[in-house]
């Protein structure tokens, strides 16, 4: 049977993710998703269970909590009283403690502010670089993907309309736009400059590089 851990809970099937999961080792994947309230309480309860009953290194748990800036959370407090962002970060902490080979993070931008998104991406990038973990982000925020991810898949109407690294996005912008999808804002601007002024700016994900390029082309 396929095994997927969703918010720390083992589930038999989660079909909507099947299309997106692609080649992930399905036996060892942790999905971090937090949309429905029924997932919150069990996952937090599971966290307490791990914390209290299993022989997991307490130091490890507090290290993970500290990494996610969750030190101030009193674990004995009512989990329902935590803010949405703390609940989401607690799910991430739980996943990190379970130490799977792949992580699927679903819509992080809905629950975390920019500061916390930067924090978790720093952690997951380190896990990817130093420990070879695979990190998959599912989001509607194309700017976040373009800024942070090496490879991007764009799904529209149940099909993959784009597959490749972020440099390829600008080359294939016509296909993306024709599928009623938007480009990252920085690329949209570069595309508008080309269309309106016939000036070709270098596609980049760094706004400072864009600024220098504009300066050179004015």
């Amino acid at each position: 049977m396929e095994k997927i851990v969703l918010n720390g809970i083992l589930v038999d099937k989660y079909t909507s993710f099947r299309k997106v999961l692609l080649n992930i080792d399905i036996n060892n994947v942790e999905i971090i998703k937090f949309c429905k309230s029924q997932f919150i309480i069990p996952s937090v309860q599971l966290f307490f269970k791990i914390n209290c009953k299993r022989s997991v290194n307490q130091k490890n748990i507090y290290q993970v909590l500290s990494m996610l800036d969750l030190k101030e959370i009193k674990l004995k407090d009512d989990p329902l009283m935590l803010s949405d962002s703390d609940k989401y970060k607690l799910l991430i902490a739980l996943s990190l403690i379970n130490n799977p080979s792949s992580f699927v993070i679903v819509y992080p931008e809905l629950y975390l502010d920019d500061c916390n998104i930067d924090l978790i991406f720093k952690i997951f990038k380190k896990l990817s670089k130093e420990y070879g973990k695979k990190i998959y982000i599912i989001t509607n925020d194309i700017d976040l993907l373009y800024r942070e991810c090496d490879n991007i898949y764009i799904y529209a109407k149940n099909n993959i309309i784009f597959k490749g690294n972020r440099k390829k996005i600008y080359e294939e912008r016509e296909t993306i736009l024709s599928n009623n999808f938007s480009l990252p804002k920085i690329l949209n601007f570069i595309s508008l400059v080309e269309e309106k002024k016939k000036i070709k700016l270098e596609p980049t994900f760094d706004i400072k590089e864009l600024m220098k390029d504009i300066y050179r082309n004015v």
Partner: protein
Amino acid sequence: MANVLEIKNISFKYNNNYIFNKFNLNIKKNDFVYIIGTNNSGKTTLINILNGYPFDGEIHVNNLEYNSVTRQKISQFMNIIDKNDANNCKLINIIDKIKEISSDKYETIIKDYESLNIGKDDYRKLNYLDKIKVILFINFINSYSFLIIDEVIDMLDNKDKDIIYRLLKKYQRIYKKTILVISNNADGIIYAKRILILNKGVICFDGSVKDVDKNDNIFNELSIKLPFVVDLSIKLKLYNLIDEIYIDEKRMIKDIWKK
């Protein structure tokens, strides 16, 4: 202009920790206000208070004191749209619902609805994000004069966000609504007249997009990423390539290469 919402000295605490301690906020009628709240800033608590959580202090909505007796009356003109509304709503035929709400301007409104590219009539068959778009649209054209939108627009992609914000501005103008958008990011500030930053239960910025560059230290300290066009404007201003904060990329391009 009179205030539609007056929050006077409200205090609220969880486990002896104050989320709000003598918090004040006024929102004028027909204004479009955007509150950016970092994590743990108190934005969900503020919504919970407006949904009926007990608090110390006073809240007035359209000059009516907000309490358990007046809540029913206030809910006739104030509506809070949150992420759960899409699943809780039981609209079946969307087009009929639009006709019912606004039969006199049906032709014009239906064109705006079509711009959302939803297509199907049966609400039950829609995916979650299309449901969100329907709920927002239905709320824009109905009779509520004060709409509070809690993090709902954040769920959409850039293209849909842009369409939704433009429609929101249009219907705010036509129907003279007051709009309060609450979000954990600054993506929609270019559409709002007034921007507030809520941090740890305190308003630490109150101004418009034009005031952002003078106060960009507040945004930097809280690691709030500015919308691309505003961020680029601030940077190009430093290079003397432009001399104002733009909210429209096309106008910005025209002005950069005009010099």
